[in-house]
């Protein structure tokens, strides 16, 4: 079994369905309507509207990622200590909600959050103050967390279940308290899962537009909305592609980050 050959199907797929479309994005992003080379579409990120949209997108997806991580890590820890033969059950419980269509689920959140929605009717019944977050950035964050939480839980859960219990017991035997065991053993060993989770939450959250439209009342312009509009409304594929290229900077940042963390991960594994 030649291991080099194994990468061929995927590399072929990458070239055909990722690189070639990517080249098209670059072609559109770096030309204007007449087909002449231009950097204008890239520079367009600097206009006040676009940079504000990018800033909001970064901020909201960062907040969502942090909340997802804070919610998911303890959850994954609890789950990983449950019975082993329930593994597939646990995984499915967290993924099952996503088998209901995304649009339907987001619309359901509207029904829950609206001024006269389910939650407020309930709060009113209990004589509690109303929850007024629909059409605000808070609702967008809630939508992002809701939608992407499973993508954080599963990779962390996966890497936690892989940790050998003997390693943890050994640490305990050697006198480490729970906190030390966690920071020195469990956390570093689960880091690859955390990195995967952060990628899977942050990256899609950065480009989402449906959530901000439905739960944010379209009152906040995110960079995903801008790109979407350039393609579907304005029909200016050049500007849309140019802005997408700008977003790819974050892939590179992500690549560098995983390189850095990868080193640490391996260092600890030794």
């Amino acid at each position: 079994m030649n291991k080099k050959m194994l990468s061929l199907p995927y590399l072929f797929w990458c070239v055909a369905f990722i690189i070639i479309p990517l080249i098209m994005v670059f072609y559109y992003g770096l030309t204007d309507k007449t087909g002449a080379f231009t950097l204008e579409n890239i520079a367009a990120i600097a206009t006040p509207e676009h940079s504000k949209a990018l800033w909001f997108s970064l901020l909201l997806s960062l907040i969502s990622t942090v909340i997802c991580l804070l919610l998911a890590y303890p959850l994954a820890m609890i789950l990983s200590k449950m019975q082993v033969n329930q593994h597939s059950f646990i995984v499915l419980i967290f993924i099952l909600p996503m088998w209901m269509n995304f649009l339907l689920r987001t619309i359901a959140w509207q029904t829950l959050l609206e001024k006269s929605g389910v939650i407020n009717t309930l709060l009113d019944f209990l004589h509690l103050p109303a929850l007024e977050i629909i059409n605000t950035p808070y609702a967008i964050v809630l939508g992002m967390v809701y939608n992407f939480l499973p993508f954080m839980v599963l990779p962390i859960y996966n890497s936690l279940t892989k940790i050998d219990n003997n390693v943890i017991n050994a640490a305990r035997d050697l006198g480490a308290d729970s906190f030390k065991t966690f920071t020195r053993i469990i956390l570093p060993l689960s880091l690859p899962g955390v990195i995967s989770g952060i990628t899977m939450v942050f990256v899609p959250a950065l480009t989402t537009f449906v959530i901000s439209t439905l739960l944010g009342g379209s009152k906040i312009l995110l960079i995903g909305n801008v790109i979407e509009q350039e393609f579907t409304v304005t029909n200016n594929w050049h500007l849309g592609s140019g802005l997408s290229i700008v977003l790819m900077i974050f892939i590179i940042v992500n690549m560098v980050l995983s390189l850095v963390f990868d080193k640490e991960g391996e260092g600890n594994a030794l």
Partner: protein
Amino acid sequence: MKKFIALGLCLVTIVSTLTGCGSSGKYPNGKVYVYNWGEYIDPATIEMFEEETGIQVIYDEYETNETMYPKVEAGASNYDVVCPSDYMIQKMVDNDMLAELNWDNLPNATANIGASYYEQSRAFDPENKYSVPYCWGTVGILYNTTMVEEPVTSWSILWDEKYADSILMQDSVRDLFMVALKELGYSMNSTDEAELQEAKELLIAQKPLVQAYVVDQVRDKMIGNEAALGVIYSGEAIYTQRENPNLAYVIPEEGTNMWIDSWVILKDAENKENAEKFIDFMCRPDIALLNFEYITYSTPNDAARELIEDEDIRNSTIAFPDLSQYDNLETFSYLGEEADTLYNELWKEIKSYTSY
């Protein structure tokens, strides 16, 4: 792993027994590829057409003019008949994508569609060469009579601070600007930068009062008493009133948008004759009536309107407003790329405005 494969197979077998195999009947007279808005036709009429003509209809749906356009332009699929809105038809004419209709093959379209609709169509199809009107309507204000006590007559109520956080505006660039341009007394097809800047300022001033910019959600939000005032298409008004009797629809006195969705045939259509047969079939009064009852958007088919049994609906001023009463109704035309870009830049400024 086995468990999951078993699970998957279970699902697949359940579903396949439910759906059964598609039956392939005999269609001696070829096919026609139709690309229409979602839920914009009574499926029964398609079956009737297939039975009567022996032509197979391959039917596909889209959600907006803008997602339809790149698919048709790229020629990804060989559609024959499409049903775009006014300004989009003009854009397609400008880009030489449409075929001229042979009116000899469209007797029903000539006889049954009211002359005033062809008149109005000239805004985007100046010589009535390319399009047959299918549905039309106006844009107006839907308001909740328990929350708004004063009579609603003008767009200006949408700037009234009393209704802060209770106003729903349309989340699409032309519809949004239409409201402001009409409020200012300008044409909704304006390309004058000063006028558009003025409209933009007006809309930014309105933003703190707006609860949300929505498209289709106006309907449910108004039914659920979420907002007092909403800008909405007339086709939704009858339905929303039925669900919530406190709602009323009004066409503001400054005038509004009269929109038309029309059948067109694409230039490179391979089944042009079948396409014309399809369009003409849809203009038959009994068929147009079925479609009107199914989708509840106003029909330009005068003969079909005569057949409506419910008098209230036949004479409804919402479904069929007396057009002669308004001299300031306009229909969107395609303004060209330069103006489009300007509109979108101004729209982005409105959308990116935040008070924090």
